[in-house]
C-alpha cells in the first residue's frame, strides 16, 4: 500500500484522484503551477452536465455506464447537484433527427405539448416536442472545482505551486500538458459563451440537436446561461473564433429569440485532452501513473476514472477498465 503520493496537476482529474486517495488513507500532495483552479485549466470552461445518456449518442459504451456514477459521487463530496434531468430538442426542419437520437440512446421519454410546458414553459413557447432524460443532472463546474480543492485542504492535502517533476510515487494528471509523456494525446478545441438574460428561464440543460451547429445551454441560476461547445480538431487554446461564437449565439437565438437581447458576459476557449478513441486512460509508465484523456467528459467520468487510478496506486485493483501499460 502506497502511503504518500504526489499528484501533478490540480484540475478536475487531479482533484478527483486526490479525493479518492485521501479517502483510502493516502497522504496526498498536489503540485500545480497555478495557485487555484481557474481559467488556465480546461475544466474551468466545462458545461458541468452529468448527462451519460445523451453522451451515449456518440460516445463509447463505458461513458454511458460509468457516467451514471457521477451525480452521486459529486453529491457525496458536498457539491450541489441539480437533478432535474435534461431536454433535447430540434428545430422544426430537423424533426427526424430527434427520432434518430431517441433510437440510439436510452433513459428518455418523449414529452410534448402540456407536459413540456410544465417542465420548461419558456422552451414550450417555441418547441412542441422534446426528449426528456429524467435521470441526468448538472453542476456548476467552477463551484465544484473550488469546493473540491477547499475540501481537500481541510482533509490535509498539501498544495504546492510548482511545475517541477516530483520524486517518489507520482500520479500525473496534467491534461494536455502531459503530451510530452503521452504521444497519443491530442487537444480538441472547445469554445463557449456565457450569457445573462432576464427574459428566459430554464430549469435544466437544454440541448439543440442540429446537423451543423449542435448546442447545449446550461442554466447557472440568476439569469446566467452557459452556451457550449464547439468541438474542433485543433490544440489552440484561449482564442474563440468569431465564426464559432456566431454559431453558438445563432443556435441559442434559434432556440429562443429572447437570447438575442442577452448580455454577453464571457467568451472562452480551451483544448480538451483526448486519446484517439476519445476514452480516458489510466496508464502506468515506470513509476508514474498517468490519468488523462477525459475529453469532453471531465465532470462525468473523473469520479469513475479517479476511483480506478486510486485502485491502481494502492494496488487494490491493479488493472481496471481503462488501464494501459506503456513500456516505451
Amino acid at each position, binding site marked *: 500500500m502506497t502511503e504518500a503520493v504526489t499528484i501533478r496537476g490540480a484540475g478536475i482529474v487531479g482533484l478527483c484522484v486526490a479525493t479518492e486517495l485521501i479517502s483510502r488513507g493516502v497522504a496526498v500532495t498536489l503540485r500545480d503551477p497555478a495557485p487555484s483552479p481557474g481559467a488556465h485549466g480546461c475544466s474551468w470552461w466545462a458545461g458541468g452536465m452529468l448527462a451519460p445518456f445523451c453522451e451515449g449518442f456518440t460516445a*463509447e459504451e463505458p461513458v454511458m455506464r460509468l457516467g451514471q456514477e457521477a451525480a452521486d459521487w459529486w453529491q457525496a463530496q458536498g457539491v450541489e447537484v441539480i437533478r432535474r434531468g435534461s431536454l433535447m430538442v430540434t428545430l422544426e426542419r430537423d424533426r427526424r433527427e430527434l427520432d434518430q437520437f431517441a433510437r440510439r440512446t436510452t433513459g428518455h421519454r418523449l414529452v410534448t405539448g402540456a407536459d413540456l410546458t410544465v417542465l420548461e414553459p419558456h422552451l414550450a413557447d417555441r418547441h412542441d416536442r422534446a426528449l426528456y432524460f429524467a435521470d441526468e443532472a448538472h453542476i456548476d463546474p467552477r463551484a465544484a472545482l473550488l469546493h473540491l480543492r477547499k475540501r481537500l485542504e481541510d482533509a490535509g492535502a498539501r498544495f504546492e505551486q510548482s511545475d517541477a517533476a516530483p520524486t517518489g510515487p507520482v500520479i500525473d494528471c496534467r491534461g494536455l500538458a502531459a503530451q510530452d509523456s503521452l504521444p497519443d494525446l491530442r487537444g480538441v478545441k472547445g469554445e463557449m459563451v456565457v450569457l445573462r438574460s432576464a427574459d428566459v428561464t430554464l430549469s435544466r440543460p437544454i440541448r439543440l440537436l442540429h446537423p451543423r451547429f449542435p448546442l447545449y445551454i446550461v442554466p447557472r441560476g440568476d439569469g446566467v446561461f452557459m452556451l457550449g461547445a464547439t468541438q474542433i480538431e485543433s490544440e489552440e487554446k484561449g482564442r474563440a473564433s468569431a465564426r464559432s461564437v456566431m454559431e453558438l449565439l445563432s443556435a441559442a437565438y434559434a432556440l429562443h429569440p429572447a437570447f438575442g437581447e442577452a448580455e454577453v458576459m464571457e467568451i472562452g476557449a480551451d483544448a480538451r485532452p483526448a486519446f484517439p478513441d476519445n476514452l480516458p486512460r489510466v496508464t502506468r509508465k515506470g513509476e508514474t501513473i498517468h490519468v488523462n484523456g477525459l475529453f469532453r467528459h471531465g465532470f462525468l467520468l473523473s469520479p469513475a476514472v479517479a476511483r480506478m487510478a486510486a485502485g491502481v496506486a494502492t494496488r487494490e485493483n491493479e488493472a481496471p477498465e481503462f488501464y494501459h501499460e506503456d513500456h516505451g
Partner: protein
Amino acid sequence: MPIYYDTEIKSRLMLGTAQYPSPAILAEAFKRSGADIATVSVRREAGDERAGQAFWDMIGDLGVHVLPNTAGCHSVREAVTTAQMARELFDTSWIKLEVIGHADTLQPDPFGLVEAARILTDDGFQVFPYCTEDLVLCERLVEAGCRVLMPWGAPIGTGLGLNNIYGLRSLRAHFPDLPLVIDAGLGLPSQAAHAMELGYDAVLLNTAVAKAGDPAAMAEGFARALEAGRLGFKADPMEPRDMAAPSTPVLGRAFT
C-alpha cells in the same frame, strides 16, 4: 481504378474526416472500406501555429492519399489562401476546391469557383472542384484547367442521393474521359451504386459514414455497393423493357 492527375488510386471511395465520434472510429472506417483518399479541412483547424497538427498526423498515419479541402471558405480570396496553406501543410498540390455560395445549403458559388480554379491552376495546383452538375459550369472548370470534376448528388449533409439523374448522365456523356466524382449528398450505399451504374468514377462521403450509428460498417457497406455498381456498369446492363405497353396480339395469346 480512377486516375487523378496521373496518380492511380486503389479505391473508388473517398472519405471525409469530419464529425466522426472519434479518430479511432475514423481509422476503422478507412480500414474496413479500403478508401484510399482522405479529404481534410484546414480552414478552421489551423488556428495559430498549426494547432491542428496532432489530428493531421493521425490522418497521415492512415497511409492514404490526403486531399486537403477549402471547406468553410465563402470567397475566392479565402479559398485561394486556404489552398496555399494546405499545400504547405500537406506538401501536396492537390486541392479540393470549395467556394460556398449559400450559408444555409452550402451550395457552391459557381462564379467564384471558376475564378478560384483558374487562379489555383495557374499557381500549379491540381484542382478537384466541388461543383453542381451544371454542364456549362463544368465546361468552364475544365477550361480553367480542372482535370477532375466533383459534382454534388444533393446538398452537403442531406443524404438525399442523386437529385438530378438527367444532369449527371448528361455530364458523363459530355466528359467521357474525365474522372467524375459524386461529392456530397449521398446517404445510402444504393445511391453510391447508382452513381457507379451511371458510369461515375468515384464518390466522396462524409456525413453518411460519420453520422451513421456504426460508421465503420457503413463505410464497408458503401465500398461494397461501389464495387457492385461498377461491375454492373461494366457488364453492359440489359435495357429495361416496358411490358405494360402491349405488343401485337399473338394467335392463341400464349405469349402475350
